[in-house]
C-alpha cells in the first residue's frame, strides 16, 4: 500500500475552518483541486471520524461539519480540529487486535503467549484468530510507540502497558494533572501531543467520576494545530541536516491542493510548484497563528515557506554539517531583526504613542510593553512616549502599529509616516457616516 498522506484532509479542514460554510461543494472542490465526488467522500469520512472522536449527542451528528466546528468554538476548550490526527486508517481486524492487547496489558504484565491467548478469547466469533507471529509484530509496534514496554528480566519477556503516572495518582492529583496539561497544551507550542494526552486523561477522569473543570481560552487560532502535522517531519530533517522536497501552493494562489492522480487520463496540471530546499528553522507567528519553514535553497538563498502551503513533503539528500552550520548562521543573521520573518533591509521605526484619555490604567503603554518585541520605550511627556525599534522592512510591523489607531503616530521613516496618512484618509472616507437625507 502506498504511504498514506493526509495532505488532502489537512487542506480540507483548514479551508473548512477558515471559510466556514462560504463555498458550495463545487466551489470548495475547485479550490482544492479535487472532484465533487472526492469532496463528498472526504466530507463523509471526516464526519465519521469527528462523530466517533467527539461522541456528540445524536442530534448534533446530523449537523454539517462546518457547523460542528463552529459550535465547539465557545464554551469548550476541546481543540476542534484534533480529530484530524485520528484519521490514520487501520484495518478492522488489526484495530480489534491492537486494542485487545492494550486492554489485556492494562493491569498485569503478560508474555507474548499469554497475550495471544487473551486476544483469541476476546476476538469476535466471525473473525480469524491471530497467530503468534502477528501478535509478536503487534507487540513490537506497540512497544515502538511506547504504549507498552518490555519488563526487564529473563525470557520469556513480559509486556505491560505502563500507565503508572496515571494509575498511581489520587483523584485530586489526577485533577491537577489534567488542569496542567490543559493549560500547557492550550498556551504552548507544539501542542498536539498535549491535546492527545488531555483526551486520554479526560476519559480517565470520567471513569473515576472526577469532575472535569476546564478553563476557557479566548482568541485561539484553531487551525494552528493542523500545521503541526508537518512539524515533526521538518524537525527531523533539520536534525539530520536533510533536504526536503515538496509541492508548494502559495497561500495567495486560488488553489491549495492538487490531487495526485494515478490514472494519467485524468491527470491535470497541478498549480503547485515542486521545491527542494534545506530546512533550517521553523517559526510560529503569534499574530496570526501561522507557521513558517525557513530554508536555504540553492536557487534563491534564504527561502521562506508558509507551512499551510506544503504538500507531498519528502526527505531528500543530506548535506555536510559545515554547510548546514554556515547556512544556519546566515539565516540567523538575516532574521535577527525580523518582526516576523522578513529578511529585508533593516530600518529604524520610531513612533509616538499617546496615553489613553480618561482611563485610570495605561493600557496602551502596557500593550506596547507586552507586544513591542525588542523595541525601546522612552518617556516624552506626561501624555506621550516614544517607541523605537530596528526592524527588517516596515511591512510586518505596520499592521501592529496601525492597530493602535489614533494612539500611535508614526514619526520615522518618513515614507511609513506618509503611508499611514494616506491610509487613514482612505479609512476616513470608507467609514464616513452615510447621510440619509438624499
Amino acid at each position, binding site marked *: 500500500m502506498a504511504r498514506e498522506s493526509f495532505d488532502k484532509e489537512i487542506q480540507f479542514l483548514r479551508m473548512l475552518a477558515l*471559510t466556514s460554510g462560504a463555498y458550495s461543494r463545487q466551489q470548495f472542490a475547485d479550490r482544492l483541486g479535487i472532484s465533487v465526488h472526492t469532496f463528498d467522500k472526504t466530507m463523509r469520512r471526516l464526519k465519521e471520524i469527528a462523530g466517533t472522536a467527539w461522541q456528540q449527542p445524536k442530534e448534533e451528528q446530523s449537523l454539517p461539519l462546518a457547523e460542528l466546528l463552529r459550535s465547539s468554538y465557545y464554551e469548550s476548550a476541546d481543540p476542534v480540529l484534533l*480529530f484530524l490526527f485520528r484519521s490514520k486508517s487501520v484495518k478492522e481486524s488489526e484495530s480489534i487486535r491492537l486494542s485487545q492487547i492494550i486492554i489485556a496489558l492494562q493491569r498485569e504484565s503478560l508474555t507474548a503467549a499469554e497475550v495471544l491467548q487473551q486476544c483469541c478469547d476476546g476476538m469476535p466469533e466471525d473473525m480469524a484468530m491471530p497467530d503468534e507471529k502477528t501478535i509478536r509484530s503487534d507487540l513490537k509496534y506497540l512497544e515502538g510507540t511506547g504504549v507498552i514496554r518490555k519488563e526487564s528480566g529473563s525470557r520469556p519477556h513480559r509486556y505491560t502497558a505502563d500507565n503508572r503516572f496515571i494509575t498511581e495518582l489520587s483523584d485530586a492529583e489526577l485533577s491537577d494533572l489534567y488542569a496542567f496539561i490543559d493549560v500547557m497544551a492550550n498556551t504552548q507550542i507544539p501542542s498536539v501531543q498535549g491535546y492527545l494526552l488531555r483526551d486520554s486523561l479526560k476519559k480517565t477522569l470520567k471513569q473515576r467520576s472526577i469532575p472535569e473543570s476546564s478553563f476557557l481560552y*479566548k*482568541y485561539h487560532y484553531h487551525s494552528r494545530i493542523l500545521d503541526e502535522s508537518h512539524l515533526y517531519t521538518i524537525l527531523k530533517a533539520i536534525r539530520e541536516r536533510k533536504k526536503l522536497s515538496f509541492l508548494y501552493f502559495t497561500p495567495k494562489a486560488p488553489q491549495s491542493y492538487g490531487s495526485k492522480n494515478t490514472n494519467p487520463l485524468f491527470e491535470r496540471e497541478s498549480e503547485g510548484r515542486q521545491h527542494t530546499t534545506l530546512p533550517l528553522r521553523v517559526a510560529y507567528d503569534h499574530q496570526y497563528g501561522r507557521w513558517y519553514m525557513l530554508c536555504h535553497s540553492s536557487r534563491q538563498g534564504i527561502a521562506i515557506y508558509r507551512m499551510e502551503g506544503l504538500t507531498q513533503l519528502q526527505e531528500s539528500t543530506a548535506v555536510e554539517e559545515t554547510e548546514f552550520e554556515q547556512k544556519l548562521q546566515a539565516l540567523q543573521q538575516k532574521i535577527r531583526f525580523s518582526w516576523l520573518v522578513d529578511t529585508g533591509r533593516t530600518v529604524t521605526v520610531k513612533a509616538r504613542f499617546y496615553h489613553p484619555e480618561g482611563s485610570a490604567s495605561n493600557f496602551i503603554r502596557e500593550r506596547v510593553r507586552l507586544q513591542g518585541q525588542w523595541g525601546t520605550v522612552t518617556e516624552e511627556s506626561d501624555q506621550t512616549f516614544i517607541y523605537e525599534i530596528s526592524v527588517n522592512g516596515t511591512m510586518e510591523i505596520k499592521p*501592529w502599529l496601525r492597530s493602535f489607531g489614533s494612539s500611535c503616530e508614526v514619526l520615522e521613516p518618513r515614507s511609513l509616516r506618509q503611508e499611514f496618512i494616506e491610509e487613514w484618509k482612505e479609512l476616513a472616507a470608507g467609514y464616513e457616516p452615510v447621510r440619509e437625507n438624499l
Partner: protein
Amino acid sequence: MSLFEKIYNYQMIARLEDAEAVAVTAQEREWLSAMLRRPEAEHAFSPSTLVKLRSLMNRDGDRAIDESEHIAEEILEKAASLTGQLYHPLLRPLREALTNRLGLQLTYAVKDGSVRMRQHGYPYKLEYSMVKREWYLLWFHLRRRCVMVTKLQNIAEAAEALIPAQQAEAAEKKMTAYYASKQQQAVIQIIPQFNRELSRILYAFSCFDKEVSYEESTDTYRITLIYLRDESDFVLSRIRFLGKRILVTEGDYLRKRMYEAAQKSLMRYGITP
C-alpha cells in the same frame, strides 16, 4: 514517530474507551515530561505530587530530555506577547471552588488601585486571554448583584465560603443570561482587490466565532463576526490591524469608532479633515 499513528485511530480510541483502557505513547509522555520540567509546574501541583510525577516520568521516558530541549531550539516564536505568570498560584484554589460549586470571599484591587475587601461572590469561569496573556475570573458579586471580571493578578486573597445551593444556582443563571444578552454581530467585507490576501485576513479573524459567505458574481467575501460587547475593543484593534483591506458594512458602533479613529489619527498628523 508521526502524529498520524494507528494507535491514535478513532476506532481504536473508541474501543479502548469502552474497556476503560488508556494508551499513552512515548511522544505524549515526552511532551509531558518537558512541560513538568518548566517552572510553571511548581504552581500546578503540591510539592509532593510534583516530585512523584517527575519521578514517574523519569522511570519511563528518559530519552525525552534531549529531544524536547532540541525542539525549543528549532522553533522560533515570533510576535508573541510577553507572558507574565502563566500558571497563576490562584488557579488551583479557584478551580477547586469552581468544580465544587463553592462561594468565594475575595479581596482585590480595582482599576484605580483601590482595594475591595472580602467581597462575597460566586465563581463562573476562569478564562485565559491568548492576546493579553492574562487570567481572568468571571464571577457574580452577591451583594451588588452584578457580573464581575477580575484579573487574577489583582486578586490579593481568595477564600472559600459556603453558599446556599439556591443562591449558587441563581447566580449561575444570571451569569449565563448576561453573557447571552451581550452577543453582538457585525459584517466585515473583504475589499475584492485584496482577495489575494484572503488567507491572511481569514487567519486574523480565525480566533472569533464567525461565518463567511462568498458571492461569486462579485467575487466578494463577507465575514459575519459574533462576539461579546466587552470584546468590541479587541475586534476594533483587529479591524485597524487589517486597515483598508476590509470594510465593516454592518455594525454601527464599529463603523462610528473606525471613523473617529481615522479622524483623530489624521489630526495627529496635522491634517484637518
